[in-house]
């Protein structure tokens, strides 16, 4: 479908760099082929790859790599089955044999993602993908490395919808709860799938009952009231059933239950997206109409009047900018204050856990465990316990910090939206800023227009958009990234190999390095979030300043042109014509 007449050109003409015309066409395009990117997330060993293989009906993803998947794998619709390996810094390659996939996704073959794979796309002709569903196998949080963390986080950051796999027996455990909590906060919607491995009916029922309680507990803590019932699926049976054509087995696995559920989200997407496109294009048109009317008005003013009016607009925008600058300064103070707080906090937690680790391992040594292997094992065990405790404490702390910063961001957002209502230039500026950001979404990973989560979030829930939306989004990552770095940082060093007697002083450096790691993980996570939020705000303020400069130049030009009466008349004609064209398109139809 294509936008009618000159709508696209006119919108582009009056919207400067924001290019509303192109953007509008993109809305329409993405509504035509709606895409729903759904990451599948699970902690280690929950059968994530099995579930994905069952969905695509072929053993493509290496099962044994469940715990070691190190790059995201996208599964999307296409006429022919193929596998594309995308790299961060070179064009993608096609894979001939799907068993070679593990050379790229498995950490054992591609340690620390040294091959620089950004993501893998598996194209498959499958009726459930036809509606635009794109499933993404994300690396397990436990196996995130510096190289893949960024890509993974980008998926999480930009999407709003996820499938999370939870266990049956044992039920959700403490550590999993924290993981679920942090991921859930980053998405607006999570479908929980409970993977069954052949437990008895009673076990499954009891387990679902308990897991559901855990989920509503978590939901309450993070203010999510609407929690879908858990969907139980036997992924292994489903995969086996579909591959070996045991229809009975497949039917019983309830994979269809999950797919139908997903389908209910994809089927009416076209309508939602078209309505969304219509609404947004409508808003663009209204804005541009206001702008043209304003220009017509200006065109009819005397030079003095025009000068005065332009000066007034400029001043208002300047004053407004100063006000926002003050608010942003306050935000920065808050970030600094929090930074000091986190510093103290990180030292406290690291010290406490160091003490726990030390006292734990000393105790073991004092009781006579001096063999290298056993001491190493004890050290690793105790260290894991300490890391878990640190995660729990950190999560709570970060949660509080996030709320405080978020509140401040919302204040700024309110100020900006009030400003947009009161001031013409501000409205023009803020609107284009908001869309500048949304266009930026498809950088990095292939998120075609309305396929991405924030779009839908905005369409359905009216979430905070624009630069503040980005800042809030960054903030939501605080706990997820903290936890993943924690889990990634657990050292599995051999303490002392096969030495008959290990003294406490020899262990001290390991304890000290544990202390430093814990402290750094907490601090670095906050620091990176702080830097990101600060950058977003700085960029916003810079854009405002640039806008002031361009406004000055533009205004000078307007005055210049006003002296030339012939041009002025021609221009008036053009403005009126454009205005009429927009009105006509609005009244009839926007696209064919």
């Amino acid at each position, binding site marked *: 479908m294509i936008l009618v007449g000159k709508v696209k050109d006119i919108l582009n003409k009056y919207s400067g760099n924001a290019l509303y015309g192109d953007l509008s066409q993109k809305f329409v395009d993405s509504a035509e082929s709606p895409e729903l990117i759904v990451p599948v997330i699970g902690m280690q060993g929950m059968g994530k790859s099995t579930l994905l293989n069952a969905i695509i009906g072929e053993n493509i993803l290496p099962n044994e790599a469940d715990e070691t998947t190190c790059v995201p794998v996208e599964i999307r619709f296409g006429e022919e089955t193929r596998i594309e390996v995308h790299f961060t810094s070179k064009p993608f390659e096609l894979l001939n044999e799907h068993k070679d996939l593990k050379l790229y996704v498995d950490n054992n073959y591609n340690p620390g993602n040294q091959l620089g794979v950004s993501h893998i796309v598996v194209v498959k002709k499958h009726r459930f993908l036809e509606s635009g569903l794109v499933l993404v196998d994300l690396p397990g949080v436990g196996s995130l490395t510096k190289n893949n963390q960024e890509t993974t986080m980008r998926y999480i950051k930009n999407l709003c919808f996820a499938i999370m796999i939870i266990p049956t027996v*044992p*039920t959700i*455990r*403490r550590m999993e*709860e924290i993981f679920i909590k942090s991921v859930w906060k980053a998405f607006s919607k999570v479908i929980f799938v409970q993977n069954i491995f052949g437990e008895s009916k009673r076990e499954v029922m*009891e387990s679902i009952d*308990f897991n559901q*309680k*855990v989920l*509503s*507990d978590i939901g*309450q803590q993070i203010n999510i009231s609407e929690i879908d019932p858990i969907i139980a699926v036997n992924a292994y049976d489903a995969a086996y059933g579909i591959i070996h054509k045991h229809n009975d087995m497949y039917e019983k696995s309830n994979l269809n239950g999950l797919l139908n559920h997903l389908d209910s989200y994809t089927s009416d997407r076209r309508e939602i997206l078209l309505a969304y496109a219509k609404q947004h294009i409508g808003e663009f048109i209204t804005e541009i109409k206001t702008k043209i009317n304003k220009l017509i008005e200006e065109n009819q003013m005397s030079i003095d009047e025009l000068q005065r009016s332009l000066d007034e607009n400029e001043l208002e925008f300047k004053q407004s900018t100063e006000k926002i600058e003050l608010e942003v300064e306050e935000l920065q103070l808050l970030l600094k204050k929090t930074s000091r707080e986190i510093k103290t906090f990180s030292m406290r937690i690291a*010290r*406490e856990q160091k*003490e*726990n680790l*030390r*006292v734990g391992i*000393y*105790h*073991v040594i004092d*009781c*006579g*465990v*001096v*063999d290298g*292997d*056993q001491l190493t*094992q*004890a050290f690793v*065990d*105790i260290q894991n*316990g300490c890391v878990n405790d640190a995660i729990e404490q950190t999560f709570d702390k970060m949660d509080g910090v996030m709320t405080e910063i978020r509140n401040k961001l919302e204040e700024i957002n309110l100020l900006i939206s009030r400003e947009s209502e009161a001031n013409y230039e501000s409205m023009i500026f803020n609107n284009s800023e908001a869309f500048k950001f949304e266009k930026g979404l498809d950088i990095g990973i292939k998120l075609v227009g309305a396929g991405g989560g924030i779009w839908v979030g905005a369409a359905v829930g009216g979430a905070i958009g624009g630069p503040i939306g980005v800042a809030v989004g960054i903030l939501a990552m605080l706990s997820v990234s903290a936890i993943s770095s924690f889990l990634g940082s657990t050292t599995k060093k051999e303490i002392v190999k096969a030495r008959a007697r290990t003294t406490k002083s020899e262990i001290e450096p390991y304890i000290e390095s544990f202390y430093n790691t814990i402290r750094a993980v907490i601090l670095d996570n906050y620091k990176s979030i702080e830097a990101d939020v600060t950058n977003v705000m700085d960029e916003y303020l810079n854009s405002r300043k640039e806008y002031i400069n361009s406004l000055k130049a533009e205004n000078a030009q307007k005055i210049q042109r006003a002296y030339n009466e012939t041009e002025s008349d021609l221009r008036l004609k053009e403005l009126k014509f454009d205005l009429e064209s927009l009105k006509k398109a609005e009244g009839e139809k926007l696209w064919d």
Partner: protein
Amino acid sequence: MGLMERYEIVNNLVEEIDNKDLKTLSKFLKARISKPDSYVMFLGETSSGKSSLINGLLGMPTLPVSATPTTGTITEVVLSGDQTSYYAINKDATMEVIDDNLFDTLAKKPDNQLERLRIHTSAKNIKNFRFDNLKLFDTPGYGSLISEHDIVLKEFIPNSDVVVYTVAYKIGIQENDYAFLAFLNDLIREDAKVVLVVNRCPQNVQMDSPRIMEIVGYAKDLLHSELPVFLVPECKEDETYGYPLPEAKELWSFINELINSENHKEILNRAFNHYVIDLFRACENHVNSRFAMVNMSNEERLLLMKDFQQLIDSYQNVIDDEIIPSFAQIIDGTMKRLDDARNWIEERTIDAIERQGTSKMDETITYVNIHALPFATKEEIKEVNYYIETEVNALDRRVLDMLNTAIAKFQKDVSIRYEHHLDKATKNIIGNMMENGLKSGLLKFFAKYGGAGGSGAGVANAASHYLKVVGDLFGKTFKRETHNALKHTLKKIGATSVKSLAVVAAVIVEVLMVVYEYARWKSKLKKSVKKGLDKWLSEIKPLVEKDLLDLKAVNIQTVTELIEDVKSKMEINPELEDAKKLNELFTRVNETKERLGLI
């Protein structure tokens, strides 16, 4: 306005109201304010010399000591009055006066009825220090505290101002100290002070001796803080009495400074101020209820009684239909999870044994006992606790919903019924009647501790208790009560399960006693682990079940108190009321409120 002055204002009101319960309450409060207690808790393994330290302070062997473990129960030493007298406080909250012979016997071998012993003795014999109204608690070792003296963990330690942890120099930090110190941080109040005493040091041992540094290092790491350390040297028997009476001057002067410090007084003062306000709220609630009842026609009162009865019925339903069946399910689920936990622990431990070479029998047995088993157990028990926590929280939410619905219905019924009849003030009073007044708050609190002539009602409780009273809505009260109980239960299950591991260890160590061929020790050890874990399971299951039943009782008790509260309001008899006097009282309540600055 000073604390005593505020108290007197409220007490005047109490006198005017002339209600027996309120008067008792006021009397207790006065006693507390004029003689605030301080608590010093002595903890540490058996035979670490706690009783001797207290005897040293008193200057005579008041507490029995000997080479074998002597303290079998908790002994409370109260420094007040002029005379020395002995008491036995029983589990049913009765108190008997006993003589010193029976005291000695019971201290060594407590009978089933005994909860703790108490000595009142004069502080006058203590030179140099002002120890009036100081309470010292001598305790048995960790093991018996966990299993038999729950009250120490639940009430005494959380209320202590100072915890003196004693470790004998020669023995050092042992398994039990390790467990107890790690646990202690969760129990004490934030402003309480823990001090470490290394007892029976050889003469001339200094702080920088490796032994002392090792002990102190452990304690610091376990408690996550710097703590004052006192070295008490080994001391010869006193010539007069034939028992050691260590002076420990530095320790006592430290305690003296701490409890007589301004900060400490300030904390007490704040807590008591809350009590005074609580007492006033009790009066207000009492007068208001009577006032409302009198200002009603007979017909209206009958209808209100009906509403009251309905409310009681819905409370009862909460107990019968929700709390009781849910706990049955939770206990069942917990037992199943304990079975699973046992199997997991076994699997992990056996795995650890398998990984070792056959030449490492001794090392592996130690490793299993010291690390593999306790670590796996702690991890698994955390998960069992997580299960209990989730289930109980879900239950509490359901109960809360039910209670709130019942209250909302009551308030709605009342407001509709009396829309045209009563003035606004009376309507408000009736509407708010259900606010769980002090009947279940302060009064209960004192009745339980102060009322039984016992102790335990320290300042920490006062502070948290205050929160409870101002919260005062059913929901909040219910949640806080049950939540605290839940927290306590979880801690206790953690402690019980680890402590019970001793039975596994005992079985495993048996393997060490017999020399096996290289080929056989592994299978023998694995068998022992299985056997030991079976024993462990059969030991902790009934203990955990009992803890859960206690938790259930707290849940039921909290709702029952709501029922009692409503019943007490139903018992008000307007025929016995003097309307004029009641009006005066009503005015007096408001005057008092103003004078206290509560309006």
